[in-house]
């Protein structure tokens, strides 16, 4: 009964979305206030209905209702409760329910908090949001209905793919989707603005908080996925430039560009058409990410079994959404008035450069990811594009971007003083030199790694130097500096934290790719292996049965120069329900580097395959990512960006009139 209730709620949500997609749009065109007013209750009703559907599915998982096909395929009565709840989105059908639920929540947030949005803009935004919703409701109901029953009901389920039974991955999809779906807000605002025919600073202030939420979530989602790949797959890598990874990375790159260009629209009323285009592109890339992952047309190391029919449906959604919005853009964008003028050397100029480099980088990732598909369609052979391609294209583009990143915030709007800005970065230059010399002394090479470490120092110290400059550190009494720091807008703090964190993450990325040591050995109990100055003794294997799996737990003692460092217990788990083995690596971190052990199979001679790694600086990647997210959240807490508060800030006359209620 409960699954049917969920199914019914989903169908109702489709009809509510249909109404919301059409009536308010027509109302805004004809000036019919009553029709426009439909958007708000409709958006709220959608949330309510989709919540019922979502909870119904969760209920089926929690009580292990094996008469529901989706539960049979992805759950097991012995599965821990955490994975019963997270299992709802651990499969295709359920994850799509999560997708529309988030879409509905974002729509409702506009309906609730967008009180000072001009009524026509609000009606149009909610309408566009509902159109996306209609597409996905149809997709779920026609190709991926999670409420389908199976009769007779089996006694036990097939269990969730064991690789996904992991806390890191349990929360990876929700954050990733929160990011993807969050960009739908920027998209809806962009399309609505194109229909309205006006983009102004007030518009950018409404768009930025949503973009920040989406960007922060996507950053966290990608970082969690990377972290999971690092310790769960047992290959010791954290990024493979795999199509499925690139699928989430492209919207991230475009979203980062959008975040920065929206600042220019807000502060300087310039780059308007470009920002609108970026908003469309970012969400289109999010849709494409969903398509690439769900259609399975690309060979990925992370591939899951898929259904081609679904891919075709999403492809159509993608074509309609992207094609439609781009056509609208081509038709309407010329009518958007160009804004403020600026010199090439200025804050705007630096942000333009950031945008150019980020969008070019997005384009190279796009080409590398889709080229194999393109050749395949034209029947020109089967190829794959691997990490060397991306390292050769992406990295050279990021070097100038990071170099400019430290300088940009020190330039004034409109016309900047480059020599002056560089002079104020002397501390960053000194730090860069010191780090470069230190790197050469400790590691000696390779050249790219030395450049990378120098850039990382430049970015981090540069961001801190900019902050020191703002609070006039050491030039006025410390207490006054602290008072100034406390008075800085949160947005400024967010920028500093995010830029400094990117530098920290770069240290991790460079260090782990340049100086990783790895050894694979067949070890008997009692054997000792060496990696990067650590000696690792294999003490034995314990066996156990836990919940829904059997496990072999290796015991290793890590020593350095005869002194005890740590005991590590990598696991090898076997899940009988799916006849599948997973690897749980054991990691000892010193925050400067990780000692990493993955346990493999035993052979007939009683030897176990053991992979031992020393990963320098990998923890810095996770620290840097946490910092990026923190930067995003701190910016979000800036009261100027609060969704309910934008009209309180002084704004140009046009925007003020526009924002007036």
């Amino acid at each position, binding site marked *: 009964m409960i699954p049917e209730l969920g199914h019914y709620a989903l169908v109702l949500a489709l009809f509510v979305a249909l109404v919301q997609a059409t009536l308010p749009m027509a109302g805004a065109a004809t000036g019919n206030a009553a029709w426009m007013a439909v958007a708000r209750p409709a958006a709220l009703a959608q949330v309510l209905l989709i919540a019922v559907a979502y909870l119904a599915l969760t209920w089926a998982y929690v009580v292990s209702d094996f008469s529901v096909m989706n539960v049979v395929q992805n759950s097991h009565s012995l599965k821990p409760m955490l994975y019963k709840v997270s299992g709802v989105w651990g499969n295709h059908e359920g994850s799509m329910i999560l997708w529309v639920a988030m879409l509905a929540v974002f729509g409702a947030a506009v309906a609730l908090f967008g009180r000072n949005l001009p009524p026509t803009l609000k009606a149009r935004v909610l309408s566009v949001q509902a159109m996306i919703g209609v597409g996905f409701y149809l997709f779920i109901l026609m190709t991926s209905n999670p409420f389908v029953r199976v009769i007779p009901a089996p006694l036990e389920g097939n269990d969730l793919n064991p690789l996904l039974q992991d806390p890191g991955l349990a929360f990876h999809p929700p954050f990733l989707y929160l990011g993807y779906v969050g960009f739908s807000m920027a998209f809806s605002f962009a399309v609505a603005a194109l229909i309205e025919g006006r983009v102004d600073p007030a518009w950018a202030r409404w768009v930025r908080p949503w973009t920040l939420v989406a960007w922060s979530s996507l950053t966290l989602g990608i970082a969690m996925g990377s972290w999971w790949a690092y310790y769960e797959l047992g290959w010791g890598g954290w990024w493979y430039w795999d199509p499925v990874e690139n699928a989430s990375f492209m919207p991230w790159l475009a979203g980062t560009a959008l975040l920065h260009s929206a600042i220019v629209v807000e502060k300087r009323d310039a780059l308007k058409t470009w920002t609108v285009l970026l908003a469309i592109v970012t969400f289109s890339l999010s849709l494409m990410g969903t398509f690439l992952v769900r259609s399975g*047309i690309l060979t990925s190391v992370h591939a899951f079994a898929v259904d081609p029919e679904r891919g075709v449906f999403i492809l159509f959604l993608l074509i309609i959404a992207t094609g439609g919005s781009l056509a609208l853009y081509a038709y309407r964008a010329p009518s958007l008035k160009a804004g403020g003028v600026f010199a090439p050397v200025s804050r705007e100029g630096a942000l333009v450069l950031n945008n150019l480099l980020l969008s070019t980088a997005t384009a190279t990732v796009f080409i590398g990811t889709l080229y194999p598909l393109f050749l395949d369609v034209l029947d020109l052979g089967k*190829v794959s594009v691997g990490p060397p*391609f991306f390292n050769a294209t992406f990295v050279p*583009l990021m070097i100038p971007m990071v170099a400019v990143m430290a300088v940009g915030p020190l330039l004034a709007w409109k016309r900047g003083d480059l020599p002056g800005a560089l002079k104020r970065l002397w501390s960053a230059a000194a730090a860069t030199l010191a780090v470069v010399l230190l790197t050469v002394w400790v590691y000696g090479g390779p050249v790219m790694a030395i450049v990378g470490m120098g850039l990382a120092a430049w970015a981090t110290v540069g961001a801190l130097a900019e902050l020191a400059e703002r609070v006039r550190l050491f030039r006025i009494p410390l207490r006054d500096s602290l008072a100034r720091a406390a008075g800085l807008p949160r947005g400024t703090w967010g920028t500093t934290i995010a830029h400094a964190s990117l530098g920290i993450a770069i240290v991790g990325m460079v260090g782990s790719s340049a100086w990783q040591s790895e050894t694979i050995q067949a070890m008997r109990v009692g054997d000792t292996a060496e990696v990067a100055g650590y000696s690792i003794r294999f003490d034995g294997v314990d066996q156990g049965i836990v919940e829904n799996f059997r496990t072999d737990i290796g015991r290793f003692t890590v020593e350095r120069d005869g002194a005890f460092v740590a005991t590590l217990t990598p696991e090898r788990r076997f899940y009988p329900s799916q006849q599948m083995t997973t690897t749980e690596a054991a990691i000892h971190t010193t925050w400067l580097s990780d000692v990493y052990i993955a346990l493999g199979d035993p052979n007939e001679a009683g030897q176990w395959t053991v992979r031992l790694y020393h990963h320098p600086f990998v923890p810095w990647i996770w620290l840097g990512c946490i910092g990026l997210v923190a930067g995003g959240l701190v910016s979000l807490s800036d009261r100027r960006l609060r969704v309910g508060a934008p009209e309180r800030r002084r704004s140009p006359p046009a925007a003020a009139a526009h924002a007036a209620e």
Partner: protein
Amino acid sequence: MTRKKRRLYMLGLALLGLGTATALTLTAFEDNLVFFFSPTDLQMKVAEVQDRSFRLGGLVEDGSVKRQPDGITTDFRVTDGVNGVLVSYRGQLPDLFREGQGVVAEGKLRPDGVFLAREVLAKHDENYMPPEVADALKRAEHFRAGETTLVKE
């Protein structure tokens, strides 16, 4: 700076970016495209693939997996039902590596005709068949028209 001049400047920058990206992409493509071959393809292209990294795909032949005495290297044959290639891989095989299952390996062909794999692609799901492998098997099957099918999935 006038609006026109600024626009020209921006256009120049954009073109520069685009040009750089194109140049980077093209040079990178030349060196880094990894082609996919089935064992049958390989028969015809042995000369072309010398010293080049490529992907080899097919099914792991039943009964062909042998662990070498060093305890780490594994030898196995990859087959598309018509031809087979001996593959040698040093390292830990993915958790879902099994005889009779689809596999994609990346590496180089040694002069003695053994494929030295640098990487064996893992799968997260045992029902998943890499699309290239499925396609290669289909082609090989077509080639042997009339014989019993080897593809069970």
